[in-house]
């Protein structure tokens, strides 16, 4: 057997694959071969490193050198310089945005320094298509311990003591959920994994499934043992083909090793897992809707109670847990509930993965202890706002959450504190917005989403979100009426109180929270017919700064309606009446002379 002295890890997550990481792997292998090093150096396709904004990522072990934004043609230099001669390829190293300093190891980067990776512990470390690598990092040991040394009651106790709460949004204690299912009579029970990640802007579940699929299988088997279920079902979005492929491989390998199937670890415990595909419906993230979808029907939610723990799939007790929740289970078993509950805040234990995106320098997946502040996440880990602009707000909880402003940047985040400031944890999407983003427009964006995704079963959600969307659309078109603000508020509160499921009950949040924090923007749209950021095209009026304009005529030439007048080398003027606010002049001007409204 060839023994390797160095491993080159190449990110095989969706983001990096689309940026040609497959070609990087091919080229690295070809270079190694041509230099006769293919028996000494191993190229491994691994899961997401989480630093997606810098992808594709290539990491060289054992030196831990971390290369960013690697292109297929860089493979030659990496092999010839780093591997053969032991010299770092400087130009491919990451530069810390605040310090302008090149860093070679990920452990030195602010992006990783403040992170604490439990759910993402294996992402970027192992080859997700090789069960042996998972086992090498203590994989399936938790399952082995549970089956051979613990009773189901003991497992439930550990889970309850750990304080782990559902990471999909609700925050319900996982141990309790399992216990409810366990307490139900009967032999036919189910454990389900909710991998229908529908929140636009959240992608941690995808990364875990792609980067560490076995951890989900192991955790589901543990959940099966604790609750008395012998069947596991993973409900996964059809839009995640790579995750589906990796899960298929993982299930196959686990069956071969007897880690799924009959008589696991020789204990007589029987457990198997099948995949069910979603088909694109946000509401299916709601557990009762999810169960209906698994049954092959329209994914419409039903009233709770009865809870799925009592009456779920095929009318049998079913525990539905989220991907990230499951990813926390094996470490809790191995390291104990005390270890886990020592991390985090009083009521929210452990860590949370956030998908940091939007106008922030370091876009990616970030796992931090509960109680970390938004400032730490956005500035220390995220490297601050792009292009040196001003922070305006951050949206957490996706279409169910709200905006958080600069005033609350220092709030330690957990389930309760986010709720208290009008947002919510949700699945962990975190969209950073800067001074150029219009809050009315953002609210409209989310409402457009929810009214489109509303399943239509209950009236408040089906019609209410539609009406709210129409009002918002009107406001951004410059046809807002003074009473709109009150109507939005009233309608929002009503939907919150009367909708059937979580989707409807939380749908008004983006509107209510932007109304609360940015009422002035709504008023400017309605009363002055002005969009303060220039995002709403119908309300934009462009003008030219006479001090900056040098009369180059660039703007006049690109204007599609010829509303810019002025002679060469003289200050130009925009005719606001004719202007259609397309923004072409703004893009064309090289001297920042065109002022966005």
């Amino acid at each position: 057997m060839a023994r390797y002295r160095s491993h080159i890890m190449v990110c095989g997550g969706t983001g990096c694959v689309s940026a040609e990481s497959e070609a990087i792997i091919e080229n690295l292998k070809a270079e190694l071969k041509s230099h006769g090093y293919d028996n000494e150096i191993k190229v491994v396709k691994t899961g997401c490193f989480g630093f997606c904004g810098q992808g594709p990522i290539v990491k060289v072990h054992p030196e831990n050198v971390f290369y960013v934004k690697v292109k297929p043609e860089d493979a030659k230099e990496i092999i010839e310089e780093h591997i053969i001669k032991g010299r770092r390829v400087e130009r491919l190293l990451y530069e810390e945005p605040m310090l302008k300093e090149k860093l070679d190891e990920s452990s030195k980067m602010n992006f990783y320094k403040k992170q604490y990776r439990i759910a993402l512990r294996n992402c970027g470390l192992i080859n997700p298509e090789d069960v042996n690598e998972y086992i090498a990092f203590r994989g399936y040991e938790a399952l082995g311990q549970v089956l051979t040394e613990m009773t189901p009651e003991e497992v439930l106790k550990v889970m309850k003591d750990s304080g782990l709460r559902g990471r999909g949004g609700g925050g319900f204690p996982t141990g309790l959920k399992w216990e409810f299912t366990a307490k139900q009579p009967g032999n036919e029970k189910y454990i389900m994994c909710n991998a229908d990640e529908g929140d636009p802007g959240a992608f941690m579940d995808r990364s875990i499934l792609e980067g560490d699929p076995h951890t989900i299988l192991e955790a589901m088997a543990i959940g099966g043992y604790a609750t008395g279920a012998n069947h596991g079902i993973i409900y996964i979005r059809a839009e995640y083909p790579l995750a589906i492929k990796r899960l298929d491989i993982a299930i196959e390998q686990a069956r071969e090793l007897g880690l799924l199937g009959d008589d696991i670890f020789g204990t007589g415990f029987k457990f198997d897992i099948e995949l069910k595909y979603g088909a694109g419906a946000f509401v299916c993230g709601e557990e009762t809707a999810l169960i209906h979808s698994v049954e092959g029907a329209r994914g419409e939610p039903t009233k709770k109670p009865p809870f799925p723990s009592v009456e779920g799939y095929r009318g049998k007790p079913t525990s539905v847990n989220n991907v990230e929740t499951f990813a926390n289970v094996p470490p809790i078993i191995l390291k104990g509930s005390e270890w886990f509950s020592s991390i985090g805040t009083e009521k929210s234990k452990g860590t949370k993965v956030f998908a940091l995106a939007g106008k922030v320098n370091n876009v990616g997946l970030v796992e931090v202890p509960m109680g970390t502040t938004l400032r730490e996440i956005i500035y220390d880990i995220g490297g601050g706002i792009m292009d040196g602009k001003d922070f305006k707000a951050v949206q957490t909880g996706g279409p169910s959450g709200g905006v958080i402003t600069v005033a609350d940047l220092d709030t330690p985040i957990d389930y309760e504190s986010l709720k208290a400031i009008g947002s919510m944890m949700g699945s962990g999407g975190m969209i950073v917005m800067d001074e150029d983003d219009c809050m009315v427009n953002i609210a409209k964006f989310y409402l457009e989403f929810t009214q489109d995704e509303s399943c239509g079963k209950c009236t408040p959600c089906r019609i209410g979100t539609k009406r709210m969307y129409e009002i918002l659309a009107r406001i951004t078109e410059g046809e807002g009426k003074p009473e709109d603000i009150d109507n939005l508020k009233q309608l929002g509160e009503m939907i919150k109180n009367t909708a059937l499921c979580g989707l409807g009950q939380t749908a008004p949040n983006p509107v209510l929270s932007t109304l609360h924090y940015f009422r002035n923007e709504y008023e400017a749209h309605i009363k002055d017919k002005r969009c303060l950021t220039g995002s709403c095209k119908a309300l934009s009026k462009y003008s030219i700064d006479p001090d900056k304009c040098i009369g180059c005529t660039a703007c006049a030439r690109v204007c599609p309606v010829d509303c810019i007048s002025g002679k060469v080398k003289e200050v130009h003027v925009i005719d606001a009446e004719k202007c259609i606010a397309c923004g072409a002049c703004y893009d064309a001007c090289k001297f920042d002379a065109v002022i966005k409204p």
Partner: protein
Amino acid sequence: MAIKSLDELKKIRDNSLKKVNLRESGENGEEIIEMMVGMATCGIAAGARETLNAILDEIEAKGIKNIRVVQVGCMGYCHSEPTVQVNMPGHEPILYGNVSAKVAKDIIEKHILNGELLDENILIKTFNKA
């Protein structure tokens, strides 16, 4: 082949760990010994690859876990290649020269495992850690 007990799982784990233990999982609590092998052009020409492979073989044979072997660039002692630097936690780094495959094995056996220095091959004893 099905795994039928925790021990069988641990066997697979130990085997697999050998293949991946050069990756730093970020969870290694114990202190890591570093061996840095000069792998610049002159080092390779003088046989650094063989040295490196001998080191890796020996580490595996002896089952040493808390060590990482790093290939580095030219350390500037071209007259004494191949060069190997040993960083033991809590000790001054030691730089060895003319490290053949055999010397490499001795370094592991004597220096790493028993704390005896190989005086003949030492280039420098006291300097700031690179």
